């Protein structure tokens, strides 16, 4: 395994070093110009003939029986086309249950597109109104009279399993969704052998994705062709095709899902949402296009939430810094339903998998419990489980280091899995092909001038300025195989495909099952295809997001697009090159192996001299095939698929550092600088990787400092708007320096792993550790309760 540190423009890797290779180059994304001109096409921009707008009457109660719905006045309101209740819609669409067989024992109850008889969280849709305009639909929603009988609301995860607590779904017996216990090594002996034990409780505030474009869907059932076309801002068109077909009683070939521009996703748009399923069912019921775009309050009360975890955690450490044992007890409340089809057990499961992941200590005891409650649902959001597992692990490591008086980088040097020890596994048994923790740490140390910052910190403390430095090493799940969802029975494909065809002028068209929501998947596919086949990137067009016109694929989530879609593009490009060279050889009466395709032309492999332009080859193959030798058929379209098989996941690794200042009078935190060194294997486009890291870091900072869905004890969301729910804005964010170590995966020729989760995975832990580092000399109680608001910081300082 070769490993090297790269700067912002890493040299091209030799195995992929074809002439005119675009791999490793910061090529601008091909689809950006129209986005800067107001010429994008988001689903929220779309209209269709006969289209009606849907708005929903939503439950104001966290838990209530629906005793009566009177829609008479609403039906007569201006512009109204139809008013449909859950009971009426249930005749068109079947309910679903969000469980997976590989999460042993996970249970949930049937969820309807529109609530039937009972609403289980504040914001659940109880009735739909369709009108000529959204405004008229909303007006009429006001006229729908719904009578509710309030039921006990289960809101506190800590008491959800108490015998006296109301059971939300009586048929399930209790409020336990899922529980996992994992013991590895000998944790009891580990804690006994420790010179010091640190025990604390970490709390992570429930927060959400706040995509700038809310969820949007436009469903068009055409009875004339028995076909459903759904324009949807989704990350997984083929998954949605399967689900729409399944629950509407259609064949999959009757459903087409088209995904154009998507205004942000981050895992928010990879789930089944009841109101989106309702929109599709309403189109079938009413035989006309139905558009639904969530407004901001609807987004806050229905977009999946995440991260609401309480983790009791313990670490044992010897005086020489050796970590001897880990223990965690995670509790999370996920709302009234496990979200379909990925379930709401995955984040807790990931926390068990990932805690202690970067380190050699094998003694580990973990329990995770997932419980139902009457709040909005929780499910997978960017970096699923990583920010929690990383903050817990790294929080424990730095608290342990402080307790034994060791430098936080030194304790990591003594415990991180050695770079030459791979393949290896984490304490939970997760398998690592090859990681580079120590190389990354050394790179970070130099990049941030750690020693210099410590000196500056010391000098400023003497002046009453409290700055802190915090770190977070992490491992990151990318390139998931079928082990993630497929083995659990979900129709979520781990493989992906790319089809490349030569057009009649010698350009290539790539159709791919991975999708684009801003990450740069189109650019990556174009770069890889151009390099593998041999054309300038200007001669590559990429088509994504259309189940009628792309190979079957999983879409873009869990950092899979570059590593999995990219490899399929690489293989398809090579296959088409072989086909085109066979055709060129027959035209030129040459041997294919003596030829190559470079910069858009068929050339003599040895001399590089042009033998035939691709345009001329395409002209002959498409328009004068009669001139080709008898029996030769040119095949100018090639498809290849790829799925990781050797490893369940292509784990990556990295380390982050945060440098910040705490105003001990006000409790405000000023972020001064942030660093991240990560290893995503082959870097296809350094700029895109860096920007994934930066965006991810800021999303992680949001969870650490600002973002929090605040509920009262009755299950009412108190801050469902962007004025009260704080998100990171430009003025508060630091510049972020990114470095790379390159350890390609040997599972693919391309060697690329993912990079989308890394920033979000490490940032909250690094910021938490930096705050605690800043406040340590003041004797503050360590802060472990995110978000770290000024009020909480002043409390830790004992000032309020």
């Amino acid at each position, binding site marked *: 395994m070769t490993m090297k540190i790269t700067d912002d423009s890493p040299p091209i890797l030799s195995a992929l070093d074809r002439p005119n290779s675009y791999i490793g180059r910061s090529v601008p994304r091909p689809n950006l110009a129209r986005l800067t*001109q*107001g*010429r994008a096409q988001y689903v929220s921009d779309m209209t269709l003939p006969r289209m009606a707008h849907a708005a929903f009457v939503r439950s104001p109660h966290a838990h209530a029986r629906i005793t009566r719905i009177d829609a008479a006045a609403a039906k007569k309101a201006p512009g109204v086309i139809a008013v449909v209740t859950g009971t009426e819609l249930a005749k068109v669409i079947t309910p679903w249950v969000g469980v997976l067989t590989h999460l042993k024992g996970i249970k949930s109850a049937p969820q309807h597109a529109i609530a039937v008889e009972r609403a289980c969280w504040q914001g659940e849709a109880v009735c739909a109104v369709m009108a000529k305009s959204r405004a008229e639909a909303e007006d009429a929603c006001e006229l729908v009279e719904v009578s509710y009988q309030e039921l006990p609301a289960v809101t506190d995860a800590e008491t959800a399993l108490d015998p006296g607590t109301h059971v939300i779904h009586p048929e399930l017996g209790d409020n336990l969704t899922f529980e996992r216990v994992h013991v590895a090594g000998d944790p009891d002996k580990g804690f006994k052998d420790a010179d010091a034990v640190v025990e604390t409780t970490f709390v992570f505030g429930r927060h959400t*994705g706040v995509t*700038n474009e809310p969820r949007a869907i436009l469903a068009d059932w055409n009875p004339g062709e028995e076909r459903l076309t759904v324009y949807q801002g989704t990350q997984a068109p083929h998954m949605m095709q399967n689900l729409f077909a399944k629950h509407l009683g259609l064949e999959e070939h009757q459903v087409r899902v088209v995904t154009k521009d998507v205004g942000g996703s981050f895992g928010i748009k990879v789930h089944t949402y009841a109101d989106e399923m309702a929109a599709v069912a309403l189109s079938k019921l009413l035989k006309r296009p139905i558009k639904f775009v969530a407004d*901001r309050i609807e987004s806050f009360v229905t977009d999946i939430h995440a991260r609401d975890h309480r983790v009791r955690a313990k670490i044992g450490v010897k005086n020489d810094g050796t970590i001897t044992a880990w223990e965690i007890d995670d509790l999370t409340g996920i709302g009234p339903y496990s979200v379909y089809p990925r379930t709401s057990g995955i984040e807790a499961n990931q926390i068990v998998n990932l805690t202690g992941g970067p380190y050699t200590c094998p003694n580990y005891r973990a329990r995770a419990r997932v419980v139902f409650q009457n709040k909005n649902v929780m499910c997978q959001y960017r970096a699923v489980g990583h920010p929690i597992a990383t903050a817990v692990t790294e929080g424990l490591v730095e608290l342990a280091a402080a307790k034994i008086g060791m430098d936080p980088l030194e304790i990591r040097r003594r415990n991180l899995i050695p770079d030459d020890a791979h393949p290896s596994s984490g304490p939970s048994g997760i398998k690592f092909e090859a990681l580079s923790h120590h190389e990354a740490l050394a790179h970070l140390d130099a990049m941030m001038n750690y020693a210099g910052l410590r000196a500056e910190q010391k000098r400023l403390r003497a002046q009453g300025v409290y700055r802190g430095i915090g770190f977070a090493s992490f491992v990151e799940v990318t390139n998931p195989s079928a082990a993630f969802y497929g083995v659990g029975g979900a129709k979520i494909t781990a493989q992906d495909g790319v089809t490349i065809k030569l057009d009649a002028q010698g350009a290539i068209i790539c159709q791919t099952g991975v999708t684009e929501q801003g990450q740069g998947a189109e650019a990556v596919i174009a770069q890889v295809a151009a390099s593998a086949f041999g054309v300038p990137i200007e001669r590559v067009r990429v088509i994504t997001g259309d189940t009628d016109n792309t190979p079957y694929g999983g879409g873009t989530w869990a950092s899979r697009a570059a590593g999995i879609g990219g490899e399929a593009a690489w293989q398809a490009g090579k296959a088409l090159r072989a086909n085109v060279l066979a055709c060129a050889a027959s035209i030129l009466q040459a041997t294919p192996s003596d030829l190559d395709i470079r910069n858009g032309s068929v050339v003599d492999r040895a001399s590089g001299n042009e033998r035939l332009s691709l345009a001329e080859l395409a002209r002959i193959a498409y328009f004068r095939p009669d001139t080709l030798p008898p029996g030769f058929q040119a095949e100018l379209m090639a498809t290849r698929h790829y799925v990781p098989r050797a490893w369940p996941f292509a784990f990556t690794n990295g380390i982050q550092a945060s440098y910040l200042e705490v105003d001990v009078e006000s409790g405000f935190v000023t972020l001064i600088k942030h660093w991240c060194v990560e290893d995503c294997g082959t870097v296809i486009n350094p700029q895109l990787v860096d920007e994934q890291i*930066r965006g991810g870091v800021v*999303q992680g900072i949001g969870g650490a400092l600002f973002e929090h869905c605040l509920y009262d004890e009755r299950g009412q969301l108190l801050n469902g708007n962007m004025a009260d729910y704080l998100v990171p804005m*430009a003025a508060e964010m630091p510049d972020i320096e990114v470095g790379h170590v390159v350890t390609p995966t040997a599972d693919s020729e391309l060697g690329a792993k993912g990079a989308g989760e890394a920033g979000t995975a490490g940032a909250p832990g690094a910021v938490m550790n930096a705050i605690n580092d800043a406040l340590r000399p003041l004797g503050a109680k360590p802060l472990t309760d995110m978000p770290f608001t000024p009020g909480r910081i002043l409390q830790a300082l004992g000032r309020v």
Partner: protein
Amino acid sequence: MSERFHEITITVNGEEVRERVDARKTLVDFLREDLALTGSHVGCEHGVCGACTVRVDGVVVRGCLMLAVQCDGGRVETIEGVADSNEIADLQQAFIERNALQCGYCTPGMLLTAQELLRSGAVPSRETIRVHLSGNYCRCTGYQAIVDAVEAVAKARASQ
């Protein structure tokens, strides 16, 4: 009760339009729904996110906090207009080269807000750029690439 619907005349991107609009209709809904100018986006609908940023009589405003009827007789410029006039061609190019947009939803508002700062001709500090853009929400980039792009354009314009 006064009239609910009003005839308004607005010059939008240099073209005069006459429409009958509901008094309650916001400017951004009017642009998107009545004129099909979908480059201005709706994000939060209460003036926080900046996705609906447009210019009215030369001043950057939130399209969700203004009513269409308030613009009667006025001049509205949207991203489509400033893109077609090449007013911000250098800024758009800088955004593309620096990958200062990912999903692109905030971009029209971000460009118009940045142009407001850049029109002064000065070279603002990175901190000034960050503060000026602090009313425009971007979930994707973490802002640094946007700051880089705006800074690069400020420097390039100043050196011309």
